[in-house]
């Protein structure tokens, strides 16, 4: 080193290391928290005061309204009497309606002695979903998952046990046909996998079911879907649509990504048309127009029609989500699969789709949340979803003129469900991110 340098150097060696100390008082605990989070500048202080005022304003409007000892009352007029008797204003909630009608809000006009059926169905549904949602659950459980839709159908609509069972058998036949023929010719196998079950359903299910019902009448009491209503209806439509639309959506996504020009264009047109038009228009279409296309005389259950329409609708959205997932699978994976000599279907089934679907689950959950909220739209075609039931409840003389209590109740239900699912999808996203690093 040059001489000019060494003059200024201060030698220093620390003999004893310093101990860790507590931060100064202003930097600790509540004081620091307040300073940093609420009053770090005058603008922030102002914001704090404004927001405190907003909170106070909102709470002072809502809390007295919420806090209303009217749980046990049987009608709106009773409520009014009691509240005026207490010297309170009538600007207060009347919670009796919830106690009186909560079952209706949840289940619609479903027979009350059969409430256990949808409840059990929900439990089974959650159990059946568990392997998909949280991963790492034994393989035999997947069979159980596959069986759930049929169990659910049976539980909800009732009727003899044989029809859903036979529909399931049809599917199994399709799978068997595919397995059997896939060695011979791919296209034939796919065609067979579609045609065999359809033929089975069209021509064999009804007579066989009839026979079986006749010989062994096992089953549950049949409940027509016009009795479905309330929150349950939303769940049924939402869940049915999402489960049914998954395969369809995946096919559409594969179609959109395929090399065949016509297939690609058809998928794109289908997806864009469905997505370009609001659900409500489709619902009206379902309620009005399907009648045109169906042969006259067949009256098709409205709820089923809605489920089909919503399925098509959500399939288009899911196709987009899955497309994103497919795009996120690295190109090397496709090439790796090709280099191993796997066929298109094999590479999709074994390599690409498992990865793509895993990535898409959060998106699918989000789609489901949107769909679930949109099920309230069925009120417009005359189905009794929770919102539709509010008018039904208001139609009774006891509760004429009641709005807010019902809206709050429904809102809270939806909030809990959607918020929970939203959290789940967030959790999943962070988990996926962690695994990918």
């Amino acid at each position: 080193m040059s001489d000019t340098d060494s003059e200024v150097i201060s030698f220093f060696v620390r003999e004893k290391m310093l101990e860790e100390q507590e931060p100064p008082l202003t930097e600790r605990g509540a004081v620091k928290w307040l300073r940093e989070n609420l009053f770090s500048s005058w603008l922030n202080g102002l914001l704090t005061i404004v927001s405190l005022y907003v909170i106070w304003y909102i709470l002072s409007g809502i809390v007295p309204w919420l806090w209303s000892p009217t749980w046990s009352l049987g009608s709106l007029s009773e409520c009014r009497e009691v509240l005026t008797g207490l010297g309170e204003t009538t600007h207060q909630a009347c919670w009796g309606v919830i106690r009186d009608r909560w079952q209706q809000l949840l289940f619609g006009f479903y027979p009350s002695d059969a409430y256990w059926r949808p409840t059990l169905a929900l439990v089974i549904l959650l159990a059946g979903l568990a392997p998909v949602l949280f991963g790492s659950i034994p393989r035999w459980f997947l069979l159980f998952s596959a069986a759930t839709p049929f169990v659910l159908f049976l539980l909800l609509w009732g009727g003899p046990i044989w029809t859903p069972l036979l529909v399931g058998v049809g599917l199994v036949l399709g799978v068997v046909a595919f397995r059997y023929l896939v060695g011979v010719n791919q296209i034939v196998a796919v065609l067979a996998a579609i045609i065999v079950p359809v033929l089975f359903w069209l021509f064999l299910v009804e007579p066989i079911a009839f026979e079986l019902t006749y010989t062994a009448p096992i089953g549950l009491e049949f409940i027509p879907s016009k009795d479905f209503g309330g929150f349950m209806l939303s769940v049924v439509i939402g869940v049915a649509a999402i489960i049914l639309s998954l395969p369809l959506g995946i096919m559409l996504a594969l179609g959109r990504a395929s090399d065949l020009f016509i297939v690609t264009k058809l998928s794109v047109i289908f997806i864009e048309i469905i997505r370009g038009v609001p659900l409500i228009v489709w619902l009206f279409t379902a309620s009005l127009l399907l009648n045109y296309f169906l042969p006259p005389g067949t009256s098709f259950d409205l709820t089923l029609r809605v489920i089909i329409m919503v399925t098509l609708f959500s399939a288009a959205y899911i196709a987009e989500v899955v497309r994103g997932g497919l795009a996120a699978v690295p190109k090397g994976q496709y090439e790796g699969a090709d280099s191993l000599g796997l066929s298109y279907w094999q590479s999709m089934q074994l390599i690409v789709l498992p990865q793509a679907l895993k990535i898409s689950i959060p998106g699918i959950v989000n789609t489901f949340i949107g769909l679930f909220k949109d099920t309230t739209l069925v009120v417009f075609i005359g189905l009794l979803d929770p919102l539709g039931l509010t008018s039904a409840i208001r139609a009774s003389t006891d509760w004429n003129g009641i709005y807010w209590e019902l809206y709050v109740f429904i809102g809270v239900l939806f909030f809990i469900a959607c918020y929970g699912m939203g959290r789940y999808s967030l959790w999943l996203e962070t988990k996926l991110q962690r695994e990918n690093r």
Partner: protein
Amino acid sequence: MLATILGVIGGVLRLSKNWIVRKLMAVYVEGFRNVPLLLWIVAIYALMTEGTPQPRDFRVAEDGTAAASMIFDAFAITNRGVYIPAPVWGPNAVFLLAIFVLSIVGAFVYRSYAKKVLFDTGRLLPMVWPALLIAIVPTILMYFILGRPIGLDYPELGGFNFQGGTQISNPLTALWLALSLYTGAFITEIVRAGILSVSKGQSEASFALGMRPNRTMNLVILPQALRVIIPPMTSQYLNLSKNSSLAIAVGYPDVRATLGGITLNQTGRALECMLLLGLFYLGLSLIISFLMNIYNNSKKLQER
């Protein structure tokens, strides 16, 4: 429109240093996102029809008090709709409008001039206030010089209802409010995610170069965040346009009556009607996504 403003403000506030503000915005966002839009529309509609005074409540009673009063004597929120003053167009109104438009253009010209001055001479002219002044002052001046060409027709209570002014119907207001708040909640999240996606290093580098937080936001963070924000924003606008079809929620009885009638008749009209509606929305969403694509591409080009 309101949705965008709400969303951008919300997004910035959601990242505020202020804990209460953050939490407040979180409640807003989660509350609106997790409850069906339809519920919000009918709830706000119910609030407007049930919770607001009737026109006759505005009548001043003999003791000089009224059950309800107008805001600034110009606005009245009633259960039959919101009444606002209506403009009355005088002969010189066109002239005034032209000046207004010109001065807004002028404000933008001024901004680019200020930028040019900064680039040329390094003098930083104030940007916000003069631009605002240029936009507003000439119009106000001309308003008086031209002898008040645009007058306002205030709503007044006459008989059992308001006369004069413009009535904005409650369904419309409810729909507009609910849609704005709902979409605003989604846009808030998008804006927040966009700003967060710009790494902390960017703002630190900008600070280290001596730039103030505001300028850092304008010159460094927002241009980058915009690229992330635009695609999801597009789909939000698409959703907004589609959700506007929920107008039937508040005009619900009419629609069911007409459509129901059609169903009964089973005429071909329902088919055409639906087809028309469907085509309209399809066209609308194609146009929106087309425009947003152009905008998106123009932003992307700068990137690389």
